[in-house]
């Protein structure tokens, strides 16, 4: 084996090991929030972690998964390396799990309430009062259930609440839900 080929094989192995390391780090939950921040991956993998993340994403696609990056600035178009450092990296499914019989943590009623809550907060510029949301949802479900549902959404990270009882979208909403798609479907849905 020539020297160049040996070098190439060694480099390939290093990249593969780094990909494995990143995958395990992203999959194993260490805190209440899964995934990892960019600077954590930088510390673990090295400065070229975005390149490794890209390769890992391609590999994950074959297994129906993808690497999702949620930037601090949600409307960012050309992220810089600093933006990547501050961003959150998650592994999500590449497609919604409609076909598979996995309802997950919510039943259909809860999912509906979650969608309505998210859309309402989203349409009100990401700020909506807790009591107003309860009033809105209680048109279709009981008040007792509504409170329980909203508390669950807050606990799971789909919604966030501040000291003034103002609700906003939580980290999990940005990580798991395609907001634009949801808005479009609701907008074109014929009643």
């Amino acid at each position: 084996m020539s020297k160049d080929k040996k070098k190439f094989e060694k480099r390939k192995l290093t990249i593969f090991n780094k990909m494995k390391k990143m995958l395990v780090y992203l999959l194993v939950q260490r805190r209440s929030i899964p995934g990892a921040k960019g600077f954590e991956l930088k510390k673990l993998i090295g400065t070229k972690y975005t390149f490794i993340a890209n390769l890992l994403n391609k590999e994950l696609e074959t297994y129906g998964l993808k690497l999702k990056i949620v930037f601090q600035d949600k409307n960012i178009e050309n992220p810089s390396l600093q933006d990547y450092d501050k961003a959150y990296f998650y592994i999500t499914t590449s497609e919604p799990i409609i076909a598979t019989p996995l309802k997950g943590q919510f039943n259909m009623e809860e999912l509906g309430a979650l969608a309505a809550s998210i859309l309402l907060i989203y349409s009100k510029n990401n700020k909506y009062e807790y009591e107003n949301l309860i009033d809105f949802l209680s048109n279709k479900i009981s008040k007792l259930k509504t409170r329980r549902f909203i508390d669950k959404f807050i606990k799971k990270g789909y919604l966030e609440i501040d000291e003034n009882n103002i609700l906003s979208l939580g980290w999990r909403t940005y990580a798991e839900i395609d907001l634009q798609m949801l808005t479009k479907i609701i907008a074109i849905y014929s009643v």
Partner: protein
Amino acid sequence: MNNTTDELEKIIEEINLIIQKKKDPFEINIKSLLKKLNELYIKLQSIEEYSKDAEAINLLATIVKEQSNYLYDKSSTLFLAAEKLIEKLTKISILEIGKIMEMCMYPIATTNFINNDSIKIGYEYWLAKSSIRSERRTYETKINLINKDEFYYSDRKFINDLKKYEEVILSKLPLNLTKEIENLNSKDKINLLYYLSFLIAQGKVHLVEKNEELYVDAGPSKFTNSIIFRIKL
């Protein structure tokens, strides 16, 4: 460079500005620009001018495409008008919204597990952790230790009690301890033996065994080890 080239470059620059800065594609007037290009077309002379004209038309086509996309997006989302959206939400049943939500949800893949190391760390922690009872006891002991007045009082009380027992025992010497204990209740038995042990340790009295009975006599003991009394309470 003649006027035609200048004008063509101006048009190209104007269109590029809209595309690069991602401005509203309707800021540009396509009709007037096309009219202008049509007027310039007759004046074109060199290949360079023809290529610039083609570039301008190509860029205009891009703007038209952008306008089309913009319109499609806005019309499909009903301009994201909050009121329209909320109206829709009130009309659609909660289960239908749930089904729609399913189509837009990409759950995070994550795992929680315990490995051998974490079990080991946990077990070590458990072993090192003292029970709540003993923690409470230590706390109480600490309070007793730091309370100087109480400590002084208990110390003085002990000395007084010891003196009392010393006087009683010394007045009865040689004292038949076996018989003396038999007549006492359990509390007094313990107290007598407790204070006696201090008197022996101080060398004021000592124990002597005669005919399988224990006697207390004056003088220091030959034994330096601790004394163990076996008694029936």
